[in-house]
């Protein structure tokens, strides 16, 4: 609730304006019946058209004022609630951008998506609804209660009873509703998760004819969500009629009591029955908004979870400012992924001079990608230090790291938008010439120009229209455009044919002279020309040196070599 209030507070004037107009609306609502009564009683019964016209005019003026209030109230309340929603969404999104992979892995992407979209909407609906009844319900309720107390003090016990029972019912409604609504939102996470998984692996689903299996998964998730929905709807199905029943029985009780009394005051009885209906009316409104409120509470709890999530990586308060040269060093670095015990990296130490090219090779799952992912701080080392120009990377500002390092990931990932827009991720201010140059160096210029629209061709989601090798080359161009000090190439030429690959690598050597390159590859021929090569196995360093040195000293490297080149010569 605190969270919701803190957002509403930012627009407190608009909120109050809406409430003020609401007051006008209520005032007009309350006045109208009395004038209507006057028209009938004085005008029609008195057969005086003049009176009818006079009262009619007054009534229309009041109604117009009410309509005006209502329109204005709606304008302000819509704006306020939408702004609250917008800001909450924006804050969530911004927050998510600051989280590290560890956080994201734990929170689950689909759950984050649900919160940004659905949960915020729940809160927003409540804020809007609250401005509609905020005054109405309490004013009518308090007014009616006050009148009962003043006019028919004898009925206070009945009133107190009704209010107490209603309060208890409302309490239980909240108590039972809250966990159910949050479970419902969790099930929505699940549903989003299942559909997201299906969408991102639709090719595999179709290739394996697993549509039925996916449908079953979806049905199960949707069924779970529906069941959770029934569960939470049923809470209100139980309680809101019960609140009605309580007030109704209050009325019955009033009638019964006055029936038993000897001195009857019929006028007062009528009045208190009327007031009781008013109480009923406002309690009904309360119970209406109550479910919205409980749902919003559950949702705001979930929103808060993310807003209060501590980024797993601390950002240094006073990071040093310097122009990075591009020297990278690992000092006794160990790393284990959260939730696993096995070290993915085990006491790794090495250093790379600025401008040096370091090849990294090793069997599948030996920790090559993990190793390079510590340099731009995708993860932080659990032990030891990763240094950039002899500064611990954990003490550097994210901006500095980001500008100094460019990575071409193993999985070529592009975003929706045009090719040029994707490349400009590297440098949003790059000129067209620079753009083409980077693309040429990545051997991408030619095929891009062959596309309808060329650099302005819109890529579908994730660049699905491109072949694997084309995507990889665009990713390389994107990284080149950044002109980094450290360039990380994580097996990013695997889908390129050998000719294109060697052309790309040659271009790199020429264009990126002076840039430190960390080059992961499976192909000996690719890493062979690096200044030095790291050979990894099971998260540990097996050897480090030039191609020649490793061939002589490192059995693991020799095995890889023979599997590729040696055997060619044997049977070729």
């Amino acid at each position, binding site marked *: 609730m605190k969270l919701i209030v803190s957002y509403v507070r930012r627009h407190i004037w608009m909120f109050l304006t809406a409430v003020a107009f609401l007051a006008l609306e209520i005032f007009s609502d309350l006045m109208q019946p009395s004038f209507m009564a006057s028209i009938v009683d004085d*005008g*029609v019964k008195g057969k005086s058209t003049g009176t*009818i016209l006079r009262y*009619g005019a007054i*009534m*229309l003026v009041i109604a117009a004022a009410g*309509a005006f209030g*209502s329109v204005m109230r709606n304008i302000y309340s819509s704006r306020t*609630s*939408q702004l609250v929603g917008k800001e909450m969404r924006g804050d969530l999104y911004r927050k998510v*951008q600051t989280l590290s992979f560890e956080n*994201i*892995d734990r929170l689950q992407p689909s759950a984050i*998506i649900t919160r940004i979209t*659905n949960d915020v909407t729940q809160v927003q609906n409540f804020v809007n609804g609250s401005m509609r009844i905020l005054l109405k319900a309490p004013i009518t309720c308090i007014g009616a209660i006050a009148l009962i107390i003043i006019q028919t003090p004898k009925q206070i016990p009945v009133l107190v009873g009704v209010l107490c029972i209603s309060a208890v019912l409302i309490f239980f409604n909240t108590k039972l509703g809250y966990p159910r609504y949050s479970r419902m939102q969790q099930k929505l996470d699940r549903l989003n998760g299942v*559909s*997201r*998984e299906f969408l*991102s692996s*639709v*090719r*595999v689903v179709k290739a394996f004819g697993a549509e039925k299996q996916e*449908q079953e998964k*979806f049905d199960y998730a*949707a069924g779970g969500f*529906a069941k959770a*929905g029934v569960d939470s709807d049923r809470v209100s*199905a*139980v309680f809101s009629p019960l609140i*009605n029943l309580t007030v*109704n029985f209050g009325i019955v009780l009033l*009638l*019964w009591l006055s*029936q038993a009394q000897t001195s009857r005051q*019929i006028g007062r*009885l009528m009045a208190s*029955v009327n007031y009781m209906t008013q109480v009923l009316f406002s309690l009904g409104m309360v119970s209406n908004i109550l479910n919205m409120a409980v749902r919003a509470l559950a949702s705001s709890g979930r929103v808060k979870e993310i807003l209060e999530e501590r980024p797993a990586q601390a950002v240094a308060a006073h990071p040093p400012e310097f122009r990075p040269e591009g020297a990278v060093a690992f000092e006794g670095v160990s790393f284990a*992924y959260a939730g*696993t015990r096995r070290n993915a990296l085990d006491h790794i130490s090495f250093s790379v001079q600025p401008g040096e090219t370091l090849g990294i*090779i090793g*069997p*599948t799952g030996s920790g*090559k990608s993990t190793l390079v992912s510590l340099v731009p701080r*995708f993860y932080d080392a659990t032990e030891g230090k990763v240094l950039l120009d002899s500064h611990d990377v954990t003490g550097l500002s994210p901006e500095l790291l980001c500008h100094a390092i*460019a990575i071409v990931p*193993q999985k070529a990932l592009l975003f929706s938008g045009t090719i040029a*827009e994707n490349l400009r*991720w590297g440098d949003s201010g790059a000129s067209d010439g620079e753009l083409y140059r980077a693309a040429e160096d990545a051997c991408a210029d030619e095929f891009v120009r062959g596309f309808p629209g060329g650099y302005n061709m819109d890529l579908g989601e994730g660049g699905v*229209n491109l*072949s*694997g*090798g084309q995507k990889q*080359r665009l990713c390389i161009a994107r990284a080149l455009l950044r002109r980094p000090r450290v360039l990380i190439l994580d*097996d990013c030429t*695997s*889908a390129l*044919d*050998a000719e294109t690959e060697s052309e790309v690598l040659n271009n790199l050597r020429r264009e990126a002279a002076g840039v430190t390159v960390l080059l992961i590859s499976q192909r000996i021929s690719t890493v062979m020309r690096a200044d030095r090569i790291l050979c990894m196995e099971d998260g540990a360093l097996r050897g480090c040196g030039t191609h020649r040195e490793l061939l002589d000293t490192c059995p693991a490297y020799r095995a890889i070599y023979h599997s*590729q080149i040696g055997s060619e010569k044997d049977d*070729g």
Partner: protein
Amino acid sequence: MRRGAPVVKPKDMKGTLRRLWSLTKGSRKGLGWILFLSSLTSVSSILSPLLIGNTVSAIDAGKPALRLIGFLAGLYFTDWLVNFLQKFFMASVGQRIILSVRVSLFSAMKKLPLCFFDRHQHGELMSRLTNDVDNISNTLSDSLTMLLTYVFTIVGIFCMMLFLNVFLTLVSLVSVVFIFLFTRIITKRTRKLYRQQQELLGKLDGQVEESISGLSLVKAFGREKQEVTQFESENEKFCEVATRAQIWSGYLMPIMNMLNNLCFVIIAVLSGMMAEKGEIAVGTISSFLLYSRQFSRPFVNIANIYNSFQTAVAGAERILEIFDEQPEPEDAPDAIPLKNPRGEIRFEHVCFSYEPGKPVLKDINLSIPSGTCAAIVGQTGSGKTTLVNLLTRFYDVDSGRILLDGHDLRSYRMSDLRSAFSVVLQDTSLFGVSVRDNISYGGQGVPLDRIRAAASTAGADPFIRRLPQGYDTVLTQEGAELSQGERQLLTIARAVLTDAPILILDEATSSVDTVTEQKIRRAMLAITRGRTSFLIAHRLSTIRNSDIIIVISNGHVEEQGTHRELMALDGKYASMYRTQMGIE
């Protein structure tokens, strides 16, 4: 970056509603009960004021009122019961309707061809599956029940008014005409706005999904600021449209209220004049005025419901769009069942393009005898994967045909055809289930030893054993916890287990180290013996021993033959081979 303001096409609302209604099939009986119960609640809400009035006057007159009070208590109790039952059932009926809409939407979606998924952002489709479906249900459940109550009230009161005075009744009908008019004007606006709102919401979802999926790159390139700016601008647009939609909807009630009041005054004045002339009794007038007041209220409420119906319609339109998409072609009625295919494949003059005017394959002719191991090589973007896409009928050829065992692929049942292939795609998608279930994906109840055997063949067994729970380890992050090479090994194991007559490996081992790759190759040799298999690989060492090597270049078959033949030819293949081996 993402496209500008959505284009809003006005659609046929009646048609939409009719089709929406047809989706509620299966829940109609439940809906009927709910309508019945809600009509009962309207009866009790009419009766209770009457009873209270009678009771009060009985007490006033000093008559015994216990029985009346008892009646009242009974009425309230029934009212509670009916109300409770109605809400209780509504909960399950409403949710059942949503469930069935959602499930049939997903079912329609999964039948769509791949090009549909290429065109749409994932988050946007997710939004349709959640937000738009929810929108339908919210309004549907609320408004349907109320609608009935209002119609009852209108008919009842209209009769009473006619009975009292025909002329005045006609006058008050004028206000109804105005109500209709204004509702139309306003809902025309709100409908458009709601539609935009849902579209923008979908886009917002799309962006959120994409940026979370690609967060590693967003961070690596320090794009947080741009991503936020872009999100903010979409968010702003959404907020703007949603606010406008809400404001326009908000005009409805006050205007209606004004109209009502105006009408009330007009009738009062008219009847007052009539009364002066003695044409009408004063008592009649006051009753008539009270009724006319009650008469227009349900109309206003219906107008309001109609307005909120627009969100449902907007959601429904977006859902029906999916239903209207052309699904993968149905199997022909005379489709040939495909059992144990021999695996003889022929491409005859096959042409294909993903986008018109940009041909990817141009007049491909290939003949691959049963049991052959065929390797496809060529530069990136030359169309190798496209061949696979056509074989598995992810896409259909533009012209020419592909024959399997002498029959056009399109003449087989789709499910038979797809199960004739074991495919390892470049796409190494894994699912958030156990390693074991990932390997046995597509089939169920496979015994563990067969899964192990498949994993061993694929060289995946050693690393799986090292996982915390071995084969039962659940891949919570869709396999993000595995390295790319390990993912490939799992997908190979998946294909090995499928054990289909034709094997397709598209860059299956590109991220796997060469030592492991050799082991896999040796193990696969036993499996592929006697089977038709297609290998796509860039490491030519992988495919050297294939029976036939097909070199694709620019969508043409440039060369084909064995390694020796092609080396002797000294053409494209030979030059590629030499570059790669560093022989030059």
